[in-house]
């Protein structure tokens, strides 16, 4: 079996220590978590972990089984990229002078459908959401002008299929 990208979605209670418990399952198998996002979900009082890992389907199947059996986990799923709509967000902090002196910067912002979040005397901040390759491309375009700070979020995704969490919750 070949390695591929998987997005693991975990619906859970919002409890201290659960992140440690879930990350330990990856650690145990020596698998790196490529990206992680924790947020609230569509259901009140239910948290959602979105985890990206590069591994085989057999292992992701086992990992999801072991995540799901944790007491505070309601349900866990794994999906391939084709089965999800996903993106990441990024912030670039850049020296303000460049915004006014380098016309090319404005073109990069426009071409990448990015937004200027704030402009101050010393710096301005650009935000962009999209696929990893789009973000990487924009990063490469801005890099020659000097990036003061760069940060990229974990992947967030929704699945094309329905996730019947409310129905599952009723079964407990």
């Amino acid at each position, binding site marked *: 079996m070949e390695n591929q990208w998987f997005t693991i979605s975990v619906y859970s209670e919002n409890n*201290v220590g659960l992140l*440690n418990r879930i990350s330990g399952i990856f650690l145990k198998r020596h698998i790196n978590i490529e990206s992680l996002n924790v947020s609230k979900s569509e259901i009140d009082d239910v948290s959602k972990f979105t985890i990206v890992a590069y591994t085989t389907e057999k292992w992701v199947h086992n990992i999801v089984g072991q995540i*799901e*059996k944790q*007491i*505070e*986990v309601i349900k866990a799923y794994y999906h391939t990229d084709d089965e999800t709509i996903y993106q990441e967000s990024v912030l670039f902090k850049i020296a303000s002078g460049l915004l006014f002196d380098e016309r090319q910067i404005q073109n990069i912002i426009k071409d990448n459908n990015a937004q200027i979040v704030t402009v101050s005397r010393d710096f301005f901040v650009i935000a962009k959401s999209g696929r990893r390759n789009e973000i990487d491309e924009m990063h490469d375009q801005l890099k020659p002008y000097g990036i003061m700070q760069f940060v990229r979020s974990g992947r967030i995704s929704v699945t094309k299929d329905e996730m019947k969490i409310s129905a599952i919750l009723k*079964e*407990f």
Partner: protein
Amino acid sequence: METVKEKKKGTDSKKTIKISGAEAIIHCLLAEGVETMYGYPGGAIMPVYDELYKFQDKLTHILARHEQGATHAAQGYARVSGRVGVAIATSGPGATNLVTGLADAQIDSTPMVCITGQVTRQLLGTDAFQETDIIGISTPVTKWNYQITEASEIPEVMAKAFYIAKSGRPGPVLIDITKNAQIDAFDFSYEKCTAVRSYKPVPKPKISAIQSAADLINSAKKPFIVWGQGVILGKAEQELKALVEKSGIPAAWTIMGASALDTSHPLNVGMVGMHGNYGPNVLTNECDLLIAIGMRFDDRVTGNLDFYAKQAKVIHFEIDPAEINKNVHADVAVLGNSKETLGLLLPLVNENKHDAWHNIFKEKYKIEFDTIIKNDIHPTKEGLTMGEVIEEINLASNNKAVIVSDVGQHQMIACRYAKFSQSKSNITSGGLGTMGFALPAAIGAKMGAMDREVVAIIGDGGYQMTIQELGVIFQHKVPVKIVVLNNEHLGMVRQWQELFFEKRYASTVMVNPDFVKIAEGYSIEAKRISERKDLKSTIQEMMASKEPYFLEVKVEQEDNVFPMIPSGASVSDVRLK
């Protein structure tokens, strides 16, 4: 904190239902039916020990001599009684000393609740004296863990702890309680936990899966059952026996499943795995249907998975969905409690006999008997063998003893040759392979089944890992029988060194103390034998004793355990010598 103030002010003397967190813990334990617990006091758990002192007529606390001993005793107690074992320790080193027992209970699905003291809430994270992040440390080796930082959380969390430990696939739970939560007073009331929103302990069996399983069983020509501890944990011994007898299917067991079906049952064909019986191992690769019941296809059972039962359809009866397709692909997975699923299966299975197929097991047994078993239990050479000691214990106990084994050669020999006539009689560290398990586990087993004979079979290596627990046997006169099979080596490692490392015996030769003197130091009756002529009479004397008894048997130093599936080999490649 408010409640403490109120109490100090003494403004409302009627509200004496307010009790301290420490006292609440005791009431929780009593409400859960706990009678015996094992532990070791220390600074951060002292308020609870103070309450244990007050409640000593209702709750027996056994002072282990090391916290690891407390966990193994709690495990032995749980395994033999089916109840939740309880261990208690202080923060820091007290807590970290529980880790081996937690890991052992986790991998062998033993219901256990461990309670640890923790530094007071305000000191958390400050590297305070005896502070350790036991929640972080114990997370991978617990079914659930939780840190209580406020007294008012105690009843609900304790109820949840017991519910989680014993329900579904059982396992260990650790509850860490900060010192302020033990001291503070609050309004106590207790309600047992019966459900947790995100936790489904027992999956509902699918009738379609059971029907598919029955269809496969009814059409199979060479079906083979391998059962594990899931039969014992699910209390499905009668259902297993009924299934085996109705279907006529030969059945073998994993080390954790031993004793669920009488050793003498004609269709009980023995143990699978690395040192299991010859027939069950090689015929795994000849059966056309493998029916796995409450077992998890551990690598010590399967050998190389690429060559494991590839010719067979597989039915997997299992309570834990995460075990399905983890190691071996299941053609039919039947989820649920084994008692329920086997009960549903039974009426759908045709009465049958598989005599020709069963005869192949008997033929393989004969080969194994002639090459190995005969020499193990009826040796003609001068030195004593481990196998003949086990056989004498069978005879002297009428196959009724609880056998608690440690880890290594003696464990494999004990599991191979001990005869069982009732369930929950084989207590051993199967998954983790924890040397030092047996002595404390035997203490717990005896206390969990006072009406049964408990015999600990231990090697000279493992014995010295928890030998301090002789102190418990001495103090409480726990009438366990301790048999140390002394080959003056770490025998299993030495065997591997002989077979796979060209006899380079690196650090496996044991220089042992006088074990008899040590036992006598604890006022335990002790004997040492090294000749066959003394074996039967001494074991009879030991089994007849009503007191604790220590017996050291000097056995052959370089005997090996066979059959053996070398690590990474196929079950077909089991070696007979």
